[in-house]
């Protein structure tokens, strides 16, 4: 499997007394795309939010067990630092409505009070927008509000915003569920291209999408990790009956 960047050991996550992730043990490989699949409510979003320490901000949110980022204990790091190293893109595009496209991309620096020279900032914005194939579409309207863009463009803007921070891992929570097929294809293409420089973890409901973008796939069911392995193997020869049933559309 090569180098691992994120590993969980006996990871449990709770909302108050309600246990939503049970004994998750998985190792996410570096510079690959890993898909997380499973029926609604099985804990996919919660798992992502454990990785970037957002889970503990939810009311009653609590984590037990271990998560390792490279060789350090992620849960003992400063959550602010963790979130700068592990970016996240949400289900619904959420650009900052008060900011221009340019400001949205550089927001991770500006909001954190990180000083940059104008040249450096311009460069970061251009790079990030080029990585998300948005540059040609918006380079003449950089100072318009980000909310004027189409849904698909907004989502790519949100990806650019996360990439501008140069994260080691990019978490994507159903990034295309609010988009049409064309915008979806665009984003999938982009994800495949991004793998060279950043590790991707993507939650998706679409088996097709997992097949197209993910090298590895994890199947979660009722808070448990049922199966984890190379996407092709998992899709063609699932070891667990529940994985097979899910893939054949028996539930989900």
């Amino acid at each position, binding site marked *: 499997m090569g180098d691992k960047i994120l590993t969980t050991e006996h990871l449990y996550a709770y909302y108050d007394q309600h246990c939503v992730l049970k004994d998750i043990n998985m190792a996410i490989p570096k510079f690959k795309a890993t898909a997380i699949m499973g029926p609604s409510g099985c804990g996919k979003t919660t798992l992502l939010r454990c990785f*970037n320490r*957002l889970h503990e*901000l939810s009311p009653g949110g609590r984590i037990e067990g271990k998560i390792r980022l490279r060789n350090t204990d992620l849960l003992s790091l400063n959550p*602010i*630092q*963790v*979130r*700068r190293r592990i*970016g*996240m893109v*949400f289900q*619904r595009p*959420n*650009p*900052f*409505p*008060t900011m221009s496209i340019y400001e949205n991309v550089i*927001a*991770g620096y500006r*909001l*954190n*009070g990180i000083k940059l020279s104008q040249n450096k900032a311009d460069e970061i914005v251009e790079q990030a927008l080029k990585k998300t194939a948005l540059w040609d579409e918006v380079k003449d309207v950089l100072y318009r509000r980000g*909310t004027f863009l189409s849904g698909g463009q907004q989502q790519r803007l*949100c990806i650019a*915003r*996360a990439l501008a*921070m140069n994260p080691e891992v990019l978490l994507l929570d159903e990034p295309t569920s609010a988009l049409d097929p064309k915008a979806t294809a665009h984003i999938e293409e982009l994800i495949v291209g991004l793998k060279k420089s950043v590790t991707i973890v993507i939650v998706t409901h679409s088996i097709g999408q997992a097949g197209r973008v993910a090298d590895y796939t994890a199947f979660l069911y009722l808070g448990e990790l049922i199966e984890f392995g190379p996407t092709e193997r998992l899709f063609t020869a699932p070891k667990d009956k529940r994985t097979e049933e899910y893939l054949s559309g028996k539930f989900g």
Partner: protein
Amino acid sequence: MIENYRKRKLVNTLMKGLVFFFTILSLVPLLFILFYLIKQGIGAINWEFLTHLPKPVGESGGGVFNAIVGTIILIVLSTLMAVPLGIGAGIYLAEVKAGKLAYLLRLGTDILQGTPSIVLGVIAYLWVVKPMKSFSALAGSVALAIMMLPMIVCSTEETLKLIPYSLKEAALALGVPYYRTILKVILPAGFSGILTGILLGIARIAGETAPLLFTAFGSPYLNLNPLKPISALPLVVFNYASSPYPDWWRQAWGASFVLTVMVLVFNLAAKIGTRKWEIKF
């Protein structure tokens, strides 16, 4: 069937007529007040009225320049006091929602909202006038600020509650600390709503007389010192209108007119501001 239809139509017309009648009826006093205010007020207003100090009894002419300046100073001071406190409390309520302090804060806000303004005047008298041994603009501003406070708290809380959680998450996920998220993302997103609350609060207090009677007290001179008694338009209206001199009655109308226009400007600004800076999510 036809019979029934006719009857329904008749009742419908009758009801429509009634609603129309009552709408007009409730507008009549309003129009009457406006008409009267303009008719009586316009006559009193001229350049001298707006830019000169009052003359002693018996001399004709003179103006309310000191009262206009006084009202502006009172508004500025009370806004400076109420805005930071009110926004702070509003943020707390929107963020914390439950808990003992939030409960007390809400209770306090509700009570303040229902407190008669003259009582706030008494409180400012006890807190400021008595210890400092002098009526002052500061005391008046304290009374007005207390009066404005619940409006700002409520409008801030309501505005911030409407901001989607996803916006906060977007900032947090970039590693932005909580306090910066509030200051740099949430507050700017709620700017228009909060500003509207402040402007409506100002419009509300600008015409208050009762809290000023034994705090700002009034003064025939132009005063820029917040520690001295100061004049205000509502006080001029009160004093002049209850005087026995017809010339002062005329000036009371003029001052009422100026005050109404000021309040109207704040109300309009609130409407325009809301539209201009409204943020769509």
